[in-house]
């Protein structure tokens, strides 16, 4: 049985991935985000998606973490692909599957036919791969890094301490929030209201949000009082017990990530300039050729 805390609980251990400096992992995550946004080619996106997946065995995580990853990725991929294939509005579009024919009694006339479109499917696949890549990489970061090191990594990268602290607290309280959501869903069922029925989704969402939000506000007030009572922001700076140190592998990975992440948008921009007939250099033809595949 999956529990909320399984999703965010770290399983740091002593693996190659967990020993990486948190800044390395954060920078790699940022670079990956730039790459998935810049690339439109589904094959390349698939290759990019495989990179964090290939790192998972090196992190030596438990089976439950793989289950969580699989569930989140499958839901994300299925949701985006199906919804985009169904609701694709751009032209041209090619019907791939007919769900309700146009001549179907009443519903056909009412809807004008319901179809899954090939172009929508591809577009959904691209969006789904982007989402899945970031989910896999983000979870790998959270599962292999102590929250205190994420906080320290963010601070050392120049993110204000208050913001970093809020982020780490959000991760800490996520399992409680998820437990509360599932409790409220059960409460509604026991009151004779099925929140997961299609017609109930709006009111069920409001019913769920109200107590969870009210509880979160109460909890945030207690947490705020607790940290203020322990000299939070008492000085502009603070001491950190742990120090972060880059190793050679960290430097190599950061160098590689930044190089690739900056090269891809650069090539895309140069291709754009060429297509707009603003800049063209014959020596860059190989770049324009490369840009077609990105």
């Amino acid at each position, binding site marked *: *049985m999956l*529990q909320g*805390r*399984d999703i965010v*609980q*770290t399983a740091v251990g002593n693996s190659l991935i967990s020993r990486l400096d948190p800044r390395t992992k954060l920078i790699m995550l940022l670079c990956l985000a730039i790459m998935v946004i810049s690339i439109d080619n589904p094959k390349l996106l698939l290759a990019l998606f495989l990179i964090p997946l290939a790192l998972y065995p090196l992190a030596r995580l*438990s089976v*439950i973490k793989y289950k969580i990853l699989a569930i989140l990725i499958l839901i994300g991929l299925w949701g985006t692909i199906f919804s985009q294939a169904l609701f694709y509005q751009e032209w041209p579009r090619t019907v791939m599957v007919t769900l309700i024919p146009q001549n179907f009694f009443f519903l056909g006339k009412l809807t004008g036919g319901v179809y899954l479109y090939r172009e929508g499917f591809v577009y959904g696949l691209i969006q789904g791969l982007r989402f899945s890549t970031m989910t896999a990489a983000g979870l790998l970061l959270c599962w292999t890094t*102590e*929250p*205190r090191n994420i906080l320290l990594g963010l601070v050392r990268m120049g993110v204000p301490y208050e913001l970093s602290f809020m982020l*780490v*607290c959000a991760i*800490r*309280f996520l399992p*409680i929030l998820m437990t*509360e959501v599932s*409790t*409220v869903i*059960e*409460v*509604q*069922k*026991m*009151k*004779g*209201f*099925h929140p997961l029925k299609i017609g109930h989704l709006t009111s069920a969402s*409001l*019913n*769920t949000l*109200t*107590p*969870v939000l*009210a*509880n979160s506000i*109460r*909890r945030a007030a*207690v*947490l*705020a*009082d*607790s*940290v*203020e*009572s*322990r*000299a*939070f*922001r*008492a*000085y502009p*700076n*603070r*001491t*950190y*017990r742990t120090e972060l140190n880059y190793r050679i592998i960290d430097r190599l990975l950061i160098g590689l990530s930044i190089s690739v992440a900056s090269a891809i948008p650069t090539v895309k921009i140069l291709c754009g300039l060429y297509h707009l007939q603003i800049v063209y250099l014959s020596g860059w033809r190989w770049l324009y050729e490369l840009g077609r595949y990105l």
Partner: protein
Amino acid sequence: MISVSDLTFTYLGRNFPTLVRINFTIQPGEFVLLTGPTGCGKSTLLKALNGLIPHESGGWIEGCVKVCGLDTQKSSMRELTQIVGMVFQSPEDQLFSALVEDEVAFGPENLCLTKEEIELRIDRSLAMVGMDTMRDRPISTLSGGEKQRVAIAAVLAMQPKILLLDEPLSQLDPQGARQILAVLRSLNEHGMTIIIIEHRLPEVINLVSRVMIMNNGEIILDRPKEEAVQQRALFNKLGLIPPLSPRLTLADLPRRLSARDTSQQEDTSVSITAENLWFRYSKNSDYSLKGVSVKIQRGEMVAIVGNNGAGKSTLLLHLAAILKPEKGKVSFSGNGHGRLNPYQLAGKVGIMFQNSDLLLFSSTVRQEVEFGPKALSFPPKLINQIVFKILNALNITHLVEDIPQGLSKGQRLRVAAASILSLCPELVLLDEPTCGQDRIHIQGLMGYLRELTSTGLSAVFITHHLETAAEYADRILVMSEGRILDEIRPSTEYKNYHLRCSQF
């Protein structure tokens, strides 16, 4: 050590003051119990003592609070946090680090101390609360009492001279509460000045030297312990458990019936039966239930007691069909739960979770109480009758147009109970309904449930308050490590425990 003169405080957006002309002084080394009904201003007063009011909370303040000679209004939080430390009610809400040592280090790190000094303070404060061997443990693996001890250690690492505690026992089982009280006794013996807010008066009274009682924002009694405990009428009037009330232990209750005897009883009016339940939350974890069997008769009220992690809530969730057992089965009115889900049991089984606030999602109290009956398509006339009756019985008729989430803690509990009882269930399950509530609210709710059992309602409730279990339950199940260890039928002498309390 502490001097408060003519302190009046009004929160932003309120028309009336929460604290009204408060005056007192506290000497070094005193151990003060601050008590009073819910919403009387106790927590606000503590916040005024450690500077959260006015520094972090908006409102109008008059008068003066001085701690160790520092005026809290003129001093910074940086200075005050090193003099006054504060521990809050819920350990879950105030701890945010993954590891014990990180939580304790948070304050000293904020004070920009050297790493060596921080390490020293971590060791010292964990030793003071008896947690020195758990320094590198993940907080999520600790019990409630251990978490609260970490919260105290995190405050002690700031090396305060005064320790303020806002209901630190309310969410703890008896074992956890004993751990905290032992820590507080030791700290006070070493010279720490302590002010504790608590409703569990019989448990803390032996530790304190002085008692202050608040009501409606005013201090209405401030006496040495020996004199204060004699004010029985005042404690009863305010709905507080008199400090000298007898404390029950399981050993005090006669065993009239063993678990085996009950399971062999033949009774046709069984409401729910659980047989040989085995359950664990994941394949790598221990079993939370290990062969639990229980029968609840119609019209019976059963209490489940036991320390945290005993499997009490897990058993309740099985009775509500929210969890399915790995082995064994649950039958409601003769029908196995195997194919049923909570939705199909709506109107038959009602459950109130430990955090009753999660039951409240409507815009008004009336809508909240009507929600279930409307969802189950009760006739409108019947809904009106039910709602009127329950609102009256739980004394919340005057709140019908209020927003449930905006009510006081005791009122929210009663609205949550009303929203379950309006479904007219045959079985009600309550997970720690007494947690953090004062005696008036406990009596109001449990007394009404007791009344309803005469109409055939069965109720199962979890509590750490053995006195409540003995007073209201026909049977008490004692759980430990996933098993029912014992079954007790409290004799009738405990049935009017609250009346007997008033005599002490």
